[in-house]
């Protein structure tokens, strides 16, 4: 099993996300993360799916996606050539001044932003590779995480290659 990122372009119309998700469910493929966004061309959207699968399943995922009428283009991203980012929003306890100091320091270390400070909580934004986000969350756990929300991975390959 290897973690693989697959990017694909789809028709930007109702029901396509459902059909994609449904295909994964129907064939028993697990999705680690999925993200979707519009492109410059308004009639297309780009989806990025991260899966943990062996070679045979991975091949099936790519072929089954390619076969879908509303999926325009599919590519297994080359990990060496790929820039991957995920964004995390995190809300932590901060009524204790020591805890707040600690939180601010960690966010700073991870080049994050403080988006909101309340008397007893704060919200920070951190962007990075999924493993970086994982590490950051581990670091924040002792401070007291109230809520987190992750966007899922989005990715582009370097150079002139495009999907």
């Amino acid at each position, binding site marked *: 099993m290897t973690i693989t990122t697959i990017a694909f372009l789809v*028709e930007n119309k109702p029901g396509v996300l*459902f059909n994609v998700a449904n295909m994964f469910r129907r064939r028993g493929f697990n999705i680690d993360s999925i993200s979707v966004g519009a492109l410059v061309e308004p009639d297309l959207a780009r989806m990025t799916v991260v899966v943990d699968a062996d070679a045979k399943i991975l091949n099936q995922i790519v072929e089954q996606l*390619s*076969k*879908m009428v509303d*999926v*325009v283009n599919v590519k297994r991203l080359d990990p060496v050539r790929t820039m991957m980012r995920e964004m995390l929003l995190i809300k932590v306890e901060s009524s204790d001044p020591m805890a707040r100091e600690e939180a601010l320091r960690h966010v700073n270390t991870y080049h994050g932003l403080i988006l909101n400070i309340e008397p007893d909580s704060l919200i920070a934004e951190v962007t990075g590779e999924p493993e970086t986000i994982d590490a950051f969350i581990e670091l924040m756990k002792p401070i007291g995480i109230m809520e987190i929300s992750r966007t899922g991975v989005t990715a582009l390959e370097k150079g002139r290659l495009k999907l």
Partner: protein
Amino acid sequence: MVEMSGAKAFVKSLEREKVDIMFGVNGGAVLPICDELYYSDVRFVLARHEQGASHMADGYARASGRVGVCMATSGPGATNLVTGIATANIDSAPMVAFTGQVPQSMIGSDAFQEVDIIGITASAAKYNIQVRSPGEIPHAVKSAFHIASTGRQGAVVVDLPKDCLVQSGEMVFPDEVSFRGYNLNLHPNPREMDWAATLLAKARRPVILAGGGVIAADASENLMQLASLMMAPVATTLMGKGSIPNDHPLCSGLCGMHGTGASNMLMSEADVILVVGARMSDRTTARLDEFNREAKVIHIDIDRSEIDKNVETVTRVVGDAKLALQGITERLSRALQTSSKNEEWLKRMEQFRKQYEVPDHPANPHLKATQVVKALRGALPRDALVTTEVGQNQMWAALYFDVYGPRTFFSSGGLGTMGWGFPAAIGVKAARPDVPVVDIAGDGSFGMTENNLATCVEDDLPVIVVVLNNRILGMVAQWQRLFYGHRYKAVELGTTPDFVKLAEAYGAVGVRPTTIPDFEEAVRQAVKDNATTVIDVSIDPEENVFPMVPAGMGLTDIILEVGPEESAQPAAQGDSGKAEVVAED
């Protein structure tokens, strides 16, 4: 651009697709369509249940090679089509199913007869479309026919909210449609064909496995040409039956769970297996990790996702089976100086045929199903068309009813839908009114859709139904006998209905022959009269279908017979892992 109602544009779109017949049941949400059909030449065959309509459209599609069309109203009408949609799609039959839908203003409100048919059919159909304005209808219909009939063919659903049918819009009728994400993969890559031909040229024990893709691509002639060039035996899947005539010297018959000994053994001893248009389903390969691992598998398929899905291949040829077979034959005839000399390999086929002959015990008071099926073949003209139900009747037909060409034998292979054969036969008859059409049925399967007798009689689509009547769900009972210690549960059907009276109640002919000559006479009479006839033949409920490979076993674990009280415990029963496989299937 012309302005007209959605319903009018819908019927016009059907006419532009040269639809001359459709099967369905009317209802509230499709009333505007039926009102337009009132003025149209499109023939509407009224089924008595939507499932029947969907199978009729499927049968029509398989017999004619054209798109079969069915229609139902919203809600239960639509859900009743689902079995037919899934059946057609898994067997790659081109079908378009139109469903009525509540007006868009009511969608999501759980209105009367509202159901989310798009969500329900998302994984059962090749594609589905919900129309959102009247003006989208011509494009949606064109798209549905295009997608259903090209590439790997399949079933497409078009959901039509009632407001889109009633309201008017500016209509543009496209001559063609295209989808950037929809690749037909028609033309095989020359290098893939080179490589395939190279491997085939070196093969010493080649076997061709022909699937339904050969028939869909009209590639039977090409298949036989290549087989003759290589002198390679041809095994078929259930869907591939008819791709090569059963009396062709190179045809080794059905492969798989109920495959012939010859096919299964040749597949297991082959050094190169050329798969043409087949999914390599569990019923064809039997236990996968025992499937011939020495052989180099070459897979031709128009659907890339089928390659390497179940069986690992050495090389693939993605494309239309006809073009691929042509290309490979061309290359191979250059590579092979003389016609291949596989004398010994072909002798092996003869040897397996004799070795794995199913013993023919004399019949008890009942007729033997195998005898009946063979007698049916003899009594029918050579060009008769046959559908089957699902279960023992299907396997007896597949094994013992010889067919001589493509599009002559129709069966629900992938989904295994009991009740499919009879309505499908009605669709076949609609496509080919010139020849007799026979449904080889069991009493269990026929009971599931027998109400379509009304459609046969009222719509003048005469079909002959041969009910192999064993008063039991035969295949399930066979499994209970062989693998569950003969403990019958939920399989005994009793002696009702009286199929002769049932036929007569519908205005059809019912007969109950008790000898083979009487049976043959009944068949000849039904053919001569071209009348809907139910021929009720009593067979022994204990008769098994052999050869058989128990579920969870390899292709060569062939059972040919068992004694009356003996259970065919596969060796795997002791091993809990394997026994689970047996129980699951």
